[in-house]
């Protein structure tokens, strides 16, 4: 059915199956209450009003004719029969001694029940209304089975309502749209009929992206404009810094050649980072940069990369501010560039961190070998080689062969160093390094970020956050078993009424539901 004009209204308020804030406010100010009796409304008038009220909430999108066909006067209920009671008594104690009007025992099944009772703790925020009919009437309800609240139970069987009740959509109309658009499967098969009546044991599953869209904060029009600008600026900055470094270090024709090479390949800026990043073998072949310059360049890049990370790592990873999250995102883009991954690639976080770690380690090894060179100028190479071998043997046992090869290649870059260069190199030895602990923390941080990333391609605001007023509506009735991780749920059984409690979520009081039920009984 078409959505009515002024669906959420404050002047003529109606309660809706929705998480809308207007609806929340209407719920708060008790819109659906029974009116104070003024004049003498006839029974018919009372029933009509009650029906109109409840139908604006329950299956408002379903034509009246369809609902009337669904209505059932057989209301389901259940009682808890603890096995301890059934074992101890055969039921004859209920009948004993009643003839004389004497109560001989107070044994009931309920006294054996161990299930925790409902909370009676009040939030005394508001002072109760004087002479509140609803409240006065509800005092006795704890001792009865509220059958009348089950009037709309047949609607809870519908697929769209169940999707809404499982908290996969923010309103029934949205749930209905999800179903129609083919985002919902029942028992693994696509089901496009929102009026499909779930059978006990049916499993329904909603597309995760749809659920995140339906329950998440809405995306603003230019939400990630700033981030994109920042990313671009950052990239430019990185390129410039690198070019400067190349110029400064080289100072000769070869370096300029390298820079020119970078400029010609301007469209792929990662290319010159790659050139500078320390592919020792390649650059040796080209003869463009000395190993020392290589190292220096690498050092600069690393320093640049890890500039902000240390600051982020100091804070609690769970309480990252939006700015820090953005910085993390920038770091990720930088790291990808540094490790010469294409920026768009969906590199795994673990992979990324492993590679970064490898880079840093080789950087560190170089530093160590510089020191070695300094100490014993005589047998530099052998010692360095031995040292490297030892370190490799101890730390990198499990590493893959190519990784070791790569490290060695970087190491070889050091071999032909003069004394002057060594002293220079020692100066360069930077503080751009992270301890093992910090590295682990960074990996964890990135992994957490991966869980809920900033992603412009999504139709909802990223990182994902729940809708503002969701918590007031967040409840899952017991006839559903929900696994929110995969956005799937099982319809266990039909909703039932128990003593003092009905499972159909309805915002109306017992009195209203009773009048409605009487309307649909069609008995005058």
């Amino acid at each position, binding site marked *: 059915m078409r959505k009515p004009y002024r669906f959420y209204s404050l002047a003529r308020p109606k309660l809706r199956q929705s998480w809308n804030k207007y609806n929340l406010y209407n719920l708060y100010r008790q819109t659906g209450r029974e009116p104070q009796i003024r004049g003498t409304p006839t029974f018919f008038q009372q029933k009509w009003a009650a029906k109109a009220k409840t139908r604006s909430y329950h299956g408002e999108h379903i034509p009246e004719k369809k609902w009337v066909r669904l209505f059932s006067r057989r209301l389901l209920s259940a009682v808890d029969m603890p096995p301890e009671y059934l074992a101890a008594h055969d039921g004859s104690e209920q009948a004993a001694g009643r003839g004389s009007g004497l109560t001989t025992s107070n044994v009931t099944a309920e006294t054996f*029940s161990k*299930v925790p009772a409902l*909370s009676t703790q*009040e939030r005394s925020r508001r002072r109760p209304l004087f002479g509140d009919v609803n409240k006065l009437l509800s005092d006795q309800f704890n001792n009865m089975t509220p059958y009348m609240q089950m009037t709309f139970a047949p609607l809870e069987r519908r697929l769209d309502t169940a999707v809404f009740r499982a908290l996969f959509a923010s309103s029934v109309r949205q749930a209905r749209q999800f179903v129609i658009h083919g985002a919902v499967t029942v028992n693994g098969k696509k089901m496009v009929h929102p009026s499909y009546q779930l059978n006990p044991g049916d499993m329904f599953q909603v597309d995760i992206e749809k659920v995140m869209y339906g329950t998440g904060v809405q995306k603003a029009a230019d939400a990630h404009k700033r981030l994109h600008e920042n990313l671009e600026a950052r990239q430019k900055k990185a390129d410039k810094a690198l070019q400067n470094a190349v110029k400064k270090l080289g100072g000769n024709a070869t370096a300029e050649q390298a820079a020119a090479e970078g400029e010609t390949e301007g469209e792929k800026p990662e290319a010159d980072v790659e050139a500078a990043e320390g592919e020792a073998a390649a650059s040796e072949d080209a003869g463009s940069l000395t190993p020392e310059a290589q190292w220096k360049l690498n050092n600069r890049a690393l320093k640049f990369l890890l500039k902000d990370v240390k600051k982020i790592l100091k804070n609690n990873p769970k309480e990252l501010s939006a700015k820090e999250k953005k910085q993390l995102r920038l770091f990720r883009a930088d790291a990808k560039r540094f490790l010469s991954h294409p920026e768009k690639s969906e590199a795994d976080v673990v992979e990324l961190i492993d590679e970064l770690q490898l880079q840093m380690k080789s950087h560190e090894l170089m530093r160590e070998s510089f020191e070695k060179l300094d100490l014993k100028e005589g047998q530099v190479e052998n010692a360095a080689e031995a040292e490297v071998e030892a370190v490799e043997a101890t730390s990198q046992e499990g590493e893959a062969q190519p990784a070791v090869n790569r490290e060695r290649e970087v190491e070889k870059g050091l071999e032909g160093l003069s004394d002057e260069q060594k002293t220079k190199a020692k100066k360069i030895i930077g503080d751009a390094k992270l301890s093992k602990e910090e590295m682990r923390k960074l990996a964890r941080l990135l992994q957490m970020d991966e869980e809920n990333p900033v992603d412009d391609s999504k139709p909802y605001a990223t990182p994902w*956050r729940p809708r503002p007023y969701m918590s007031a509506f967040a409840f899952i009735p017991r006839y559903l*078993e929900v696994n*929110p991780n995969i956005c799937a749920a099982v319809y266990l059984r039909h909703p039932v009424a128990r003593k003092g409690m*009905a499972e159909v979520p309805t915002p109306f009081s017992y009195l209203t539901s009773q009048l409605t039920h009487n309307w649909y009984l069609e008995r005058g």
Partner: protein
Amino acid sequence: MSRARQQMYQWLKGRDGSEFADLKGGPRYLGPLQDQPFPLNPLFRSQPVLDEHTRELIWDKVMGRGESLKAVSAEMGVDVRRVAAVVRLKEVEKQWQREGKKLATPYAKAVMSMLPKTYYREGEKNLPHEPVNEIHVHKLTMQQLFVPVSESRHFTREDAAKAFHDTMLSVDARSPQPELIKMEREILDGKTRQESLAKFKEATQKEEDKVARRIAQEQQREEKATTKVTTDRYEFRFKEINADDVGRNGRSRKGTGWRYGAPFDDRKRGLVKIPTSVP
């Protein structure tokens, strides 16, 4: 802005409204009672759901340690149907993880933080999640009945059921956990709890094994009845069928195929096309 809207925004921005806007851990509902989402309806409460660890534990007990569903249900105070559903959903989740499919973790975390939860800690004393032996109120028992019996008569549940209807079963017979009742009876008769618990577990395990065996046999029978012919592209499966199974009018559900000439009703006007069940 109208006056009503002004008031609404005032409330939303005020202390009460802003509480709902931002998450501050733990469930938060409108109602006067703590677990009451609708202010006018104290008869509906937000009941706790199983928390993540408990669901994982249930899965581990059933799939990892091979305990029977009924035993897990009785031990943890969770309905048998819910135990089965939890395992089924967890299996799908594990499969997703194996396939490297991304889970809706941020959503799940947010939702679970908004809901009241039941925790089950192994080796500790835990409150049950829900009644495990719940009986539907039968339609026949919803009438008031006056049955005159002699004062000396021992009038039990069975007799009461018989009074309602000849074929009516008593509560004990309709229980989803008859083994549990038997166990409690044994304990009352003087056996130790440990002993009868072991017996209960064995009985439920046996029952489950029986069901598993029956399913396996059925599968086997099915397989035996089908002849498979594999070509390079397809696997053809042939089965013996009886053409008479379709019945006199060619429309019997038991039969295979459709009698030539019998009109299909599946596109007729006025007939409901929405499936009633999905296998």
